[in-house]
């Protein structure tokens, strides 16, 4: 459990970082909190020649709400800081709650929000929360800066839209308008573990009819990426989130989800669990609308 030999550098600007990542002479990896990368190095599952530490780049350490009311979290912002931030707790409580389910305090104090997103373990909390909140990702590379939507960002397990010579510099979360309710539910083997299966839900209440105007439902631990199920959302829209509507939505989830087996749980368990959590989460989200 010792890594292969690598160099380490801590640039002070995004430009320098991107230049280092684009160096074709040697394979470079971005490190911030190191909560996933360092174990992978130690097990020699990752063998970069250069680690580019982005935590010394001042602009990446920013967390703020911009003029249009969007939450912008820089790549070096630690999870604990984001979860404790007053603006986040007030305006993006789903995000704060999802972060609270990540590992243990030590992990959240080192790990970064963007690091978890860029690493993309599909059983992790943040990718699913990001898809549910319709986050956008700002990516900078030698070809310039581009912005990618959440559903295009997560490509496959441990794979995202960020190319090897690019850096995820910011995650941007739009505000949750009035009459939107949210919930995040997950099943874990132990406190702090990755989700065996989980779900993030945002519901919008049509105050005139007292029914669901729009819904976003995204599952973690249910596939190679956060799994958004429009069919479940459709099953909820127009309903009063009553017993029948919930049962119907759960039936759709059971039919549509195709998770995998692993040592922790069978696929069947995950499907049932997801459907069960969906009911619980929708009930909570509706109460919060």
């Amino acid at each position, binding site marked *: *459990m*010792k*890594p*292969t*030999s690598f160099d380490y550098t801590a640039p002070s600007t995004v430009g320098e970082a991107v230049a280092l990542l684009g160096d074709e002479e040697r394979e470079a990896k971005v490190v911030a909190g190191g909560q996933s990368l360092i174990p992978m190095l130690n*097990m*020699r599952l990752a063998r970069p020649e250069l680690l580019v530490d982005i935590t010394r780049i001042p602009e990446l350490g920013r967390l703020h709400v911009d003029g249009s009311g969007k939450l912008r979290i820089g790549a070096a912002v630690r999870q604990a800081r984001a979860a404790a931030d007053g603006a986040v707790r007030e305006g993006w409580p789903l995000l704060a709650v999802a972060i609270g389910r990540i590992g243990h305090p030590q992990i959240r104090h080192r790990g970064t929000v963007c690091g978890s997103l860029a690493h993309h373990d599909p059983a992790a909390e943040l990718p699913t929360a990001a898809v549910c909140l319709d986050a956008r990702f700002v990516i900078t590379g030698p070809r310039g800066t581009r912005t990618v939507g959440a559903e295009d960002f997560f490509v496959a397990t441990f794979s995202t839209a960020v190319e090897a010579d690019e850096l995820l510099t910011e995650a941007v979360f739009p505000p949750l308008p009035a009459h939107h309710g949210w919930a995040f539910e997950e*099943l874990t*083997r*132990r*406190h*702090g*573990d*990755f989700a*065996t299966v989980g779900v993030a839900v945002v519901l919008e209440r049509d105050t005139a009819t007292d029914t669901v105007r729009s819904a976003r439902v995204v599952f973690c631990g249910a596939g190679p990426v956060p799994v958004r199920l429009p069919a479940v959302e459709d099953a909820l829209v127009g309903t009063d989130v009553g017993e029948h509507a919930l049962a119907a939505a759960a039936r759709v989830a059971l039919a549509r989800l195709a998770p995998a087996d692993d*040592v*922790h*749980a*069978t696929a*069947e*368990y995950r499907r*049932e*669990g997801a459907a*069960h959590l969906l009911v619980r989460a929708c009930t909570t989200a509706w109460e919060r609308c």
Partner: protein
Amino acid sequence: MSHASDRDRSDQGNSNGTWIGRSVPRVEDDRLLRGNGRYVDDIALPGAVEAAFLRSPHAHARIESVDVTAALTAPGVVAVWTGDDVADLPAMLNKEELRTPPGLAALLDPLVRMTPMPLLARDKVLYVGQPVAVVLAENRYLAEDALELVEVRYAPLRVLVDPEHALGEDAVRLHEDLPDNTAVAVATRVGDPEAAFAGAHAVVSERFEAHRYVASPIETRAVSAQVDPYSGRLTVWSGTQTPHRLRDAIAHTLGLESATVHVIAADVGGGFGQKGILYVEELLVPHAARRLGRPVLWREDRNENLTASSHAREQIHRIELAADAEGRIVAVRDRITVNFGAYNMTGLVVPYNSLCHLLGPYRVPNVHIDVTGVLTNTTFATPYRGAGRPETVFAMERAMDRLAAELGIEPAQLRARNLVRPDEMPYATGLVDRSGSPQSYDSGDFPELLRRAVAKADVEGVRARQREGARDGKYVGIGFAMYIEATGLGPFETARIDVAPSGRVRLAIGAPSQGQGHRTSMAQIAADAIGVPFDVIDVVGGDTEATPFGVGTIASRALVNAGNATHRAGRLVREKIVEAAARRLGVDAGGLDLSDGIVRAGEPGGPSISLAELAGKAPLPGIPEPTDGRHGTEISETVHFRPPGFAVASGAHAAVVEVDEHTGEVEILHYVVVHDAGNIVNPMIAEGQVTGGIAQGIGGALYEEMVYGPDGQPRTGTYMDYLVPTSSEIPDLDMDEIFTPSPMNDLGVKGLGEGGAIAPQAVLAGAVEDALRPFDVVVRRGPLSPSRVRALIRAAADA
């Protein structure tokens, strides 16, 4: 949580000392908490070479060739050795553990086949993780770089993971010199079980499986070795539970005199049995130090610990209980299959422990048990905290629950009807114990243990809640499990006490500590035995120079063996001190008393002398006065305590759980433990031991499993997949205890290091089954992960 340690035990049993029975704070803790521990990795050896092992990626394969050429030229590499390079060293055998006691051999004639393990595999590899080559390099990083350059060609063979398959007629043989894959076999009978079954009112017949899980000490294994060029002596630091056995094995393997090998186990971060056996790394590292003429270090990493240090627990029980209409057991039959893994490391230890603890606290007149240990292409299995008892208690207690269900008797009631009573002690079971003598329970009060557990767990309250039905899909249930544990395994342990001229007392014991707090508890025993203050005593353990003979800290034996050796040595030292004082004071020894380090004549105001004055007073500068009739000041005694029989500890656990029908999650609402370990030396340490054991037991019951694929690949090789419970997963424990002193030793003590770990699997399985009674499920295997619990409910619904 009730704190047993809140109460001191000066009133208990036969102890009237001033230190025994008190929760003396551990003298170890200040040092350890300040980071001043001395674990193997803390020993700095300048100029040391680090070892890394190339381990087999195959579960079963023939080695066709090994090419180390590229590895030898890698930066920092000092040497690369394969099986051929160490072929002159004898293969490894855990000789002590593989020896069948003569009594057992004579009475039961067990089969025990030896499978010596090559220090590095030569022709075949038998499990994933088996050492194939070792790289010695300037540091571990460079050593691991070079490992990648060793080229091994393997020809894969058929893989056996399932022990019952391994016993099949056409099964491939792991060890080609053996006729089949049986490693050990032993059977025993009492009475006429066939007749009893034929005439029984009720019979329960089940197949229960204890699943494989592992010890996970917080400090992985580690070995350092150095040859002193001045003396030529070899010093080895190892996190071992048995330093004297390791010393002798190193000497045997390397062709040395035992007296020239010095083994030190200083601080050890948990052993739990995993460090109680020999490993090839412990022999190769000292060999390398001698061959290279440089100190050599090896630190096991967590992957290695999970996949290549010993595993435990995997057993299959085909158990049958026969009972009369009142639920009195008339016979037990059990066919036990133990998965040994690739080598027979510890012979009968685990299988026979399972055999002779199956009946537990129950009276069973007719018995037939047979046990087979089977070789498979998995990591070898050895004792782990409980060592065959958690497995066998799981089978027996599960069977008791099934019998209770069959007869419609409250499970605690059924147990109560079958318990051996205190007035039957000493109770002969009819079996033969592990040392080969007729098995006898020396002491205990099993009905009282159960009575207290039942009262604390509030069975009636749970039944009332069950009648109300589930709340939000959550079902409540209660389980019970009882066990006995024959503790204090011999053959002996050593204690040596020396009184220094300053009056300080040095106690050296053969048994090392892996966190049990020997420096505290043994000093408490010595302080009372001699009559000196606790804080004048220094305890040394785990050093073969301090005591030339010793066995080790395994099998819940240290307190019984080393504790009583300490007690006896202390009493002898006390006599010497009193005699010396009598001569000095010119009075009769009979009228003198030694307490608190001062010898006093009986009457108030009489003459007195302190131990410091007595031991240190010299009539001429530098020439001490004889104090004991012989030359010199030596006040010293060495005692080898040999236990006459087992001190039988016992316990009753109860658990109330809530099971979520939808998620399969199990929440422990109330965990009750009532235990009996005879007289307690340090209640706080005892409570810690019981708590730690239960935590590991809950780990096995709900979280931990070492999973193999059918290809023999471990699927839980990191802590991402192998789930050890943290403090968040362990509930508060409701603890109570009774004290039935053991008549087998002067102190009346019994071992308790393992007890806590024995019952949790059984008690939680019983509680979950009870909670799911509306679904009519039977729990036959753990761990009770949410996925497995849901599968039980689903299968019951589909049935």
